[in-house]
C-alpha cells in the first residue's frame, strides 16, 4: 500500500543534456534520468527542483530511453532560474504525479491548448500517434502571437502524417487564423458528427469556455482537462494545497486531469483557486 505513495518522491538529480528556445520566454529542456524509472503517462507532471531556489510543477512533454523532455515558460523567480540553467547543470525532479489522460478508442481526438499547457498535449500527441486503432487527431493551438506558439515546428512536421490535423490561431493574426482556438474547435464540432473527445490544457478560464462549448455538442462524449491553476506543494496528495471544492479532490493526485463528470462537480472550476496560504481567490 505504502509503495505507491513514496515511490520516487525524494528529488532525483538529473543532468540537463539539451536546452533550446521553444518560443518567446519559453525553453525546452531534456533531462537525463540517473536511474531507470517507470514510463510517465500523458498528463502526469513532475515537481522540478532548482536547488537553492524553488520547486514547482511542470508537465511532461516527452519521455524516452531514460530522458525526459519538459518545457518551461518564464513566470517568476523559479522559472527564470531554470531558464538560466545551462547544459551540464543539475536539477532535481520528483514524480511522476497525477492521473493521466485516458483516451478511449474509435473517437476523434481533439487536443486544445495554449502556453505551457502544450507540454502535456505534446506527449499526448506522441502517444496517440502510436495508438493502435486511432481516429484522426486534431490539435488546436492558440497564442497571443506567433512567437508565443510552442512546438510549432514539431507539430508542423507531424502534420505531414496522415492522422494529424494542426489548427493554429493567434490573437493578433501573426500566424494561423486570427482569433481564439475555440473558433476552429466549434467549426469542427459543427461539421463532424462522429464521437469526439476534447483534451484541454491551458489557462483555466479558457478551459471553462471550452467546457461550456463542448457541453453544447452531443457528439462530444467526454472532455478531459488538465487543471494547472493551483498551487502545488507536496504533489502526492498530503497537504491539500491543491484541493478543489466542494469535492475535496486533489489536483496533484486525483487530477490534474479531470473528465466531464468530475468537472461538473467541481464548482471551483474556472472560478476559484487557493493561494499559498490556503485562502480562496477568484481565478
Amino acid at each position, binding site marked *: *500500500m*505504502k509503495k*505507491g*505513495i*513514496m*515511490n*520516487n*518522491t*525524494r*528529488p532525483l*538529480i538529473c543532468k540537463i543534456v539539451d536546452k533550446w528556445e521553444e518560443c518567446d520566454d519559453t525553453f525546452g529542456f531534456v533531462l537525463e534520468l540517473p536511474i531507470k524509472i517507470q514510463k510517465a503517462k500523458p498528463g502526469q507532471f513532475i*515537481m522540478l*527542483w532548482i*536547488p*537553492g531556489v*524553488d*520547486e*514547482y510543477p511542470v508537465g511532461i512533454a516527452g519521455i524516452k530511453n531514460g530522458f525526459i523532455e519538459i518545457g518551461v515558460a518564464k513566470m517568476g523567480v523559479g522559472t527564470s532560474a531554470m531558464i538560466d540553467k545551462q547544459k551540464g547543470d*543539475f536539477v*532535481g525532479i*520528483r514524480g511522476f504525479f497525477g492521473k493521466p489522460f485516458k483516451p478511449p478508442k474509435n473517437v476523434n481526438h481533439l487536443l486544445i491548448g495554449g502556453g505551457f499547457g502544450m507540454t502535456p498535449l505534446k506527449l499526448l500527441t506522441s502517444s496517440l500517434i502510436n495508438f493502435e486503432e486511432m481516429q484522426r487527431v486534431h490539435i488546436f493551438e492558440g497564442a497571443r502571437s506567433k512567437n508565443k506558439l510552442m512546438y510549432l515546428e514539431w507539430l508542423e512536421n507531424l502534420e505531414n502524417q496522415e492522422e494529424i490535423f494542426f489548427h493554429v490561431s493567434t490573437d493578433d493574426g501573426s500566424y494561423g487564423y486570427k482569433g481564439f482556438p475555440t473558433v476552429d474547435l466549434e467549426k469542427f464540432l459543427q461539421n463532424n458528427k462522429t464521437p469526439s473527445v476534447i483534451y484541454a490544457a491551458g489557462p483555466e478560464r479558457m478551459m471553462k469556455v471550452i467546457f461550456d462549448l463542448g457541453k453544447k455538442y452531443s457528439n462530444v462524449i467526454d472532455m478531459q482537462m488538465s487543471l494547472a491553476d493551483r498551487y502545488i*506543494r*507536496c*504533489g*502526492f*496528495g*498530503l*497537504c*491539500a*494545497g491543491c*484541493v*478543489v*471544492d*466542494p*469535492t*475535496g*479532490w*486533489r489536483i496533484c*493526485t486525483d487530477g490534474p486531469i479531470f473528465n466531464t463528470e468530475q468537472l461538473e462537480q467541481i464548482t471551483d472550476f474556472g472560478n476559484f483557486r*487557493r*493561494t*499559498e*496560504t*490556503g*485562502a*480562496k481567490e477568484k481565478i
Partner: protein
Amino acid sequence: MSLETNLGDIKLKNPLILASGILGASYSSLQRMYDAGMGAVVTKSIGKNPRSGSPNPTIFALVEIKSIVSSVGLANPGYKTFKEDLVKLTEKQTPAIVSIFGETKEDIGEIIEGLNDLPLLAFELNLGYSKENPKTVQEKVGIIKQITNKPLWVKLTPDECNVIKIAEAAVNCGCNALVAINKVKAMVIDIKTKQPVLGAKKGGISGSVLKPIGVRCVYDLYEHFGDKIPIIGVGGISKGEDVIEYLLAGASAVQIGSAVGVAYPENMVRFIQMGIRKYLREQNIENLDEIIGGAFK
C-alpha cells in the same frame, strides 16, 4: 465489537482522527476524510494572520525509511478567512477540531475568541511552533480555558525540553487531552548539489520512523498520568496494528498523517479499520477500553 472511544466527554465513532496539516487546509478535503471513515478531523494549524509558509520544496518522502521530511512553515490563511471553511464544515455536523498556534498568549486568545461561536468538537494547541517551556504553556493553556468552554487538546513535540514537564503544565491548567507527537527535527542534504533539499533548509520528519518514538512518548505519558487525562497517539501509523500498538501504550485515540498521502486515501482508512477489526476479532476483544494501556498489565 465496537470501535467507539471516549476522550473525556467526547465520544468518537472510531479512534482514527485525521492529523493536523494533512489535507486540512480546506473544508472539502476535511469533509472527504471524515466521509472516508475517520472518527474526527483536525484542521491545519491556523494562526492569527495569513502566512504563505516556507518556499518549496516543502514536502518529500524518503522511501527507504517510509517517511516524510517536511517544512510547510505553518502556511495558513489566518483564522478570519479560514472561518468560512469551518462554517461549511461544521454545518454538516462533522466532528472538527481546530488546530491553532500563536507566538503570544494574546494572539492565541484572539483566535479562540474569533472561532468560539462555531460548533467545534475541540481546539488543539500546536506547541511545535515556538520554543516553549512549562511557563509559556501554562499561559497559553490558561488563556484558552478562560475564553472557551470547549475541550482543549495540547499537542506535544518531542523536540521539547522534557515532554512530561510540558504536559504537566498543560494538564494542571485544565487541558482536556494530550496529543503526542509532532514531527521530529530533521533535514536532508542533497550530496550532488550540496544543498539542503527543503526550501526552509531545516524541517521535521514524520511517517514510519516516528512510530517507535511516538509509542514511547505515549507510554511515558500514560505511565505518568494514568487515567488522569486521555492521550491521543500520533506518529507513523499506517496500519491497524500500529493503532493497536498506540492503544496498548495508553492512547485512547490516534491521529493519522503521512499515511494519508496516497492515491486512494479512502482505501487507506478502510485498510486501517480492517486491521483493527481483525485484531479485535482474533483477540476476542469487544471494546477498545479493554486494551487501552494494556502494555502496563
